[in-house]
């Protein structure tokens, strides 16, 4: 997205370079280009040759100088963008800012929607995996309920009986996590290629990316926990004898 900061007329060199410095410092920007009022005029003349007469008539250059800046692709949080714009506008010498506010806000609400959908789907998938694991283990427990009974009758503690099933739940959880990590990897690697640029702005919104190492560990840990909980919930009623 393009953001244009218009400068006051006859801005001193030092003030201008201060603004430039601030723009260059920002991690949100890919690029910040100074456009002098002469360049702006030239551009206008190139783009609208049929309006040449108007310019000739007013006799002075009506175009202020400006910084034209472009955002890095991944910066989609509109809050961040707005905060950034406000910060820069507060600097001495900035007269006006031009950017597509609508677009920013639309992106923001879209991304909020995408997040909500993500959490919703994630919640459903977590519940689903919990129930799948707990049912798989329930079937196993059921198939071995005579054995569990014998274990209880020869003096096995509940934990002794549970351990193999807990292991099973854990292994299922870890396997599930690993498989989905592989899928995520394939998705991130090949899906954008497949879609190419047809995704356009959506690409920024969906923002395919790998998980960080910490996230991967958390992900696997969550798999383990879901597996354990699924397992615990399915043995309990067979430990009554």
């Amino acid at each position, binding site marked *: 997205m393009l953001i244009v900061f218009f400068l006051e007329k006859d801005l001193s060199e030092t003030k201008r370079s201060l603004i430039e410095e601030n723009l260059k410092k920002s991690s949100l920007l890919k690029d910040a280009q100074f456009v002098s009022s002469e360049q702006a005029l030239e551009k206008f003349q190139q783009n609208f040759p049929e309006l040449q007469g108007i310019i000739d008539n007013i006799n002075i250059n009506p175009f202020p100088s400006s910084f034209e800046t472009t955002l890095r692709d991944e910066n989609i949080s509109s809050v961040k963008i707005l905060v950034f714009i406000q910060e820069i506008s507060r600097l001495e010498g900035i007269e006006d800012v031009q950017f597509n506010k609508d677009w920013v806000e639309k992106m923001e609400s879209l991304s909020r929607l995408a997040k909500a959908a993500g959490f919703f789907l994630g919640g459903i998938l977590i519940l689903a995996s919990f129930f799948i694991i707990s049912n798989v283990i329930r079937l196993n427990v059921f198939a071995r309920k*005579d*054995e569990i*009974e*014998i*274990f*209880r*009758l*020869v*003096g*096995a*503690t*509940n934990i*002794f009986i549970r351990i193999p099933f807990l292991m099973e739940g854990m292994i299922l959880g870890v396997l599930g996590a690993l498989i989905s990590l592989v899928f995520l990897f394939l998705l991130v690697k090949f899906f954008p290629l497949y879609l190419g640029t047809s995704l356009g702005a959506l690409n920024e919104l969906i923002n395919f990316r790998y998980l960080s190492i910490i996230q991967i560990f958390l992900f696997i840990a969550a798999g383990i926990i879901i597996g354990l909980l699924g397992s615990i919930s399915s043995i309990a009623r067979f*430990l*009554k*004898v």
Partner: protein
Amino acid sequence: MIDLYHIWKQYQPPHWALNDINLHVDKGDFYFVTGPSGSGKTTLLKVIFREIFPTQGQIVIDRRNILRIPDHKIYKLRRTMGIVFQDFRLLFHKRVYENVAIVLQVLGIPRKEIRRRSFNALRMVNLHHKMWEYPSQLSYGEQQRVAIARAVVHNPKILLADEPTGNLDPELATEIMTLFKEINNQGATVIICTHDRDLIRYFGEKILFLYKGKLIRKETL
């Protein structure tokens, strides 16, 4: 050691599988429980190791009311007991050896010790040569002996046996009884359900007669 106070057990009305049983068993006693089939012998044993709860009454073992022990602590009671089930209850996908060793494994005994004691228990019932076979490869009598080995391998304080010689020929039955007697001589309390009169005549000390859930006679020979 074991006290039963007014034990009643009803599976389905109107029949009482146990009908007001009162019983005091001392430490080191050697009891036979006898009576016709369906008289409640198995049910009596089941309430003692708390596989089932009586409908009414209280059971005290070693000064503890076992009906009040929560499920997750009942293993402590079971570890003091050896039980030969009428239907054996072997682990059919585990080998004979493992069926016996499991009792020691749950106690957390070192592996070497487990091997030694499991082997000894199987030798006592004359099955050590089949310890790597599966129960399904054994005859009923042999399966019963596996169940017996499992019941005695951890030197239980209380040995409960439900028709433990039902599938054995007389010589083997005598051997098993001699084994139980030995365990009894080492201080264990033993209760054996049987309707084998010869065994009772030969080994009987204290005998309980059950009939339709009632304890109709106690005899001490």
